[in-house]
């Protein structure tokens, strides 16, 4: 990833600094080269919110802080230059969608909302000093919003870390998604595609089952002699089970095996081994590894006793473990809402409003999140699960969960309408 130099960053910030009448505060000295004294990459003048992670939760939060109070400086730290949507990325595997159709730039956040983008990686958080560390220095914040998403627990599967790019997860949309689509396309006509589902909790509960539909649809239409084997670490399909099982009736080439947690992957032998010792040969493998909150959240000790996920206040999204640090998106736990894009988008908005109000000494309104998860079961049909919530005694409580009665092109239209609106809500 290309990195923004301090000088570039200051240049990019100059307009906003001038507008807020604070020019000069951020222009002292040259960038130090010594690693001994970490430098303040952008000295703080007014109130500042730093956001770690420009995905569904973080980008939304950055935008909504600026929308709510343009006097607050917002710096968004995101290593990737482009936003690639995880929702709908299973459609890239089947060729129904291009990766380009899911790829957006951050220009709207910068130009429309004055969010300062820093394409860099946060390496550590210093809660007492209110600082975020990056490789070249640090940033000071008044409040921090942590939205780093998930990391993989590769160590739980023997051979996975060593396998490198020979075993793909494609669970963070981007180059791996495109690479896995390529492997599927190149697979021999009577090949075996093996995909593994991690134990809950993981990002996007229906996602692996949607992926199974898309791979099976592709094989059925392009390689009818090929086969898909789904090895699920869970005892059953953990999201929309009846709907997915009904959808799979159309895919006799799909073999689903519950309670089949994998213990080992061997790319040289093209073989995975389950924890019961069963060996399954593959031509193409897609291992979706077990997951936890991304490393930065673990490093900052925002995670609970399970060392995996971050517990937060249900109204403000402030960490229960660290003052002035809020956590949104897939790295959270404890709120009875799934790790979905819609929930992350909801959390981003709610946390942003909470942060602005807290910085301005105002009461925080109680705002419940929502969830909508559409799953594509073929090239033209989708289905959905919807969850509505309320806040009761400071906790998020579910009002109702509802599933679509089946799959249809109508729900596929709704899925497209949702995606178009929500991408706009995050980035434009």
């Amino acid at each position, binding site marked *: 990833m290309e990195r923004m130099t301090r000088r570039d960053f200051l240049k990019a910030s100059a307009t906003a600094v001038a507008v807020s009448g604070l020019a000069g505060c951020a222009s002292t000295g040259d960038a130090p080269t010594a690693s001994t004294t970490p430098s303040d990459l952008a000295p703080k*003048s007014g109130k500042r919110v730093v956001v770690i992670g420009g995905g569904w939760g973080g980008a939304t939060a950055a935008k909504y802080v600026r929308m709510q109070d343009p006097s607050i400086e917002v710096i968004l730290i995101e290593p990737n230059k482009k936003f690639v949507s995880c929702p709908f990325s299973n459609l890239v595997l089947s060729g129904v969608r291009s990766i380009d159709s899911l790829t957006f730039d951050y220009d709207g956040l910068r130009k429309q909302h004055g969010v300062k983008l820093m394409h860099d990686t946060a390496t550590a958080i210093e809660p007492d000093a209110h600082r975020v560390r990056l490789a070249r220095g640090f940033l000071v914040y008044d409040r921090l919003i942590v939205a780093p998403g998930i990391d993989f627990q590769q160590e739980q599967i023997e051979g996975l870390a060593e396998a490198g790019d020979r075993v793909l997860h494609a669970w963070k949309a981007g180059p791996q998604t495109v690479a896995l689509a390529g492997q599927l396309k190149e697979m021999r006509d009577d090949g075996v595609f093996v995909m593994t589902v991690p134990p809950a909790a993981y990002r996007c509960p229906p996602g692996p089952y949607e992926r199974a539909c898309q791979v099976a649809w592709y094989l059925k239409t392009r390689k009818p002699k090929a086969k898909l084997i789904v090895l699920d670490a869970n005892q059953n399909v953990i999201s929309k089970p009846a709907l997915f099982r009904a959808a799979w009736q159309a895919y006799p080439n799909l073999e689903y095996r519950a309670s089949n947690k994998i213990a080992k992957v061997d790319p040289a032998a093209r073989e995975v081994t389950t924890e019961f010792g069963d060996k399954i040969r593959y031509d193409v493998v897609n291992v979706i590894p077990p997951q936890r909150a991304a490393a930065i959240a673990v490093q900052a000790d925002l995670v609970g006793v399970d060392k995996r996920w971050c517990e937060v206040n249900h109204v403000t999204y402030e960490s229960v473990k660290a003052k002035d640090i809020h956590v949104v998106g897939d790295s959270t736990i404890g709120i009875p809402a799934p790790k979905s894009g819609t929930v992350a988008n909801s959390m981003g908005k709610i946390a942003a409003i909470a942060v602005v109000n807290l910085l301005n000494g105002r009461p925080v309104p109680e705002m419940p999140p929502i969830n909508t998860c559409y799953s594509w079961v073929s090239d033209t049909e989708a289905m959905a699960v919807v969850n509505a919530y309320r806040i009761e005694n400071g906790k998020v409580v579910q009002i109702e969960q509802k599933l679509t009665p089946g799959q249809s092109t109508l729900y596929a239209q709704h899925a497209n309408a949702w995606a178009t*609106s929500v991408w706009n809500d995050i980035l434009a």
Partner: protein
Amino acid sequence: MVAAAVVLIAGVAFASSAAAGPVDTPGFSKAFSCSACHGRGGAARGDAVPALAGMPTWYFKKAIEDYAAGRRPSPEMEPFSKMVKTLGVDEVAAYFAAQPRQASPVKIDRTAAERGRAASAPCAGCHGADGRGDQAKGTPPLAGQPPGYLLNQMKLFKAEKRSPGDQALTQVKAVMKPLDDATLADLAAYYGSLGR
């Protein structure tokens, strides 16, 4: 150090007098979730979801009641309508009614819209020649709604899947019954093209 502190204080003073943001708009903190599907401020971006911006409060509230009661069967809107009722439907309705309507980015087939205009006489009697609707007649505004949404609603009416058995809707269903899907699509394009 002293200079920095002074600047910080100045910054605080500046911020506290900052202009009000969206959350200060009455109803925003109850309506903000809707933007995931219905667009920010109810300005829908997609084709199959209605725009809520500028929707009259009486019709918004009727829709919420119909969804919550299952008269408009919708697995997506039933839970959310109950949530809106929990939060306070009056405030959410007032919020969207006050939002400026923006043109939908969905492209309109102009030829289809022309055919739709020619076929729109039976609709205009109740929805008005400009498609703005009439509360006295219980007809909602159609102008500028995404055509995909309008078409789906007409199909649901025709198939007795929206408000089945509702006597008040006998007339609108009778109007749609003899029309084929192509004509319904033309009408949807026409009403979607109005008020842009």
